[in-house]
């Protein structure tokens, strides 16, 4: 059974600081997705990582995938309040079209 673990589960950080969210998974996969969810809202796709070594960047967020380590990271650079949200990673085993989601990391950026 595929397990996807994120840490930390909750992160409070000051504006301007850097931090990394980790997503570990238990079965070989070379496809992983990151989503953002604002309070009371649905999930919005952030990044699609489709191979080992893939790196994607959008603004202050950068995501990477290391399939050998079964690890993806979401790095936040110089955080701003607007980044406050819950971030989910989701692993794709292919074939069956299903995704397995991590438990989410709630990010709170304080002024």
């Amino acid at each position, binding site marked *: 059974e595929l397990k996807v673990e994120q840490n930390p589960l909750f992160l409070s950080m000051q504006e301007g600081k850097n931090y990394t969210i980790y997503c570990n998974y238990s079965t070989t996969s070379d*496809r992983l*997705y990151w*989503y953002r969810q604002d309070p009371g*809202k*649905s*999930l*919005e*796709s952030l990044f*699609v990582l489709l191979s080992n070594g893939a790196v994607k960047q959008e603004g202050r967020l950068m995501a990477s995938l290391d399939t050998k380590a079964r690890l993806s990271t979401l790095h936040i650079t110089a955080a701003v309040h607007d980044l406050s949200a819950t971030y*989910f990673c*989701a692993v*794709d085993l*292919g074939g*069956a*079209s*299903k*995704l397995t*989601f*991590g*438990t*989410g990391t709630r990010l709170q950026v304080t002024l």
Partner: protein
Amino acid sequence: DVKVTQSSRYLVKRTGEKVFLECVQDMDHENMFWYRQDPGLGLRLIYFSYDVKMKEKGDIPEGYSVSREKKERFSLILESASTNQTSMYLCASSWQGYNEQFFGPGTRLTVL
């Protein structure tokens, strides 16, 4: 832009009622999914469908059924609602072979 819509944002029902949640997507996606989201439990897959009239059980199908009569529409049915089905329900869709899922706005269901 991909658009996934859900029939209600908020719904309040009584125990024992039959509840229909409807999801419609406009991007000709083959795959459609129903999840529920609860605090501390993340997203859990209830059912999914990869074609019209096809359905597969997800991780927590008990107490739910689904219907997919048309490609763009996927319905989740609670045959007899119970209080432990109070939750946020999210619908998603994706293309066959490319599994990035696009989510609807969610339905917050309360069962009294």
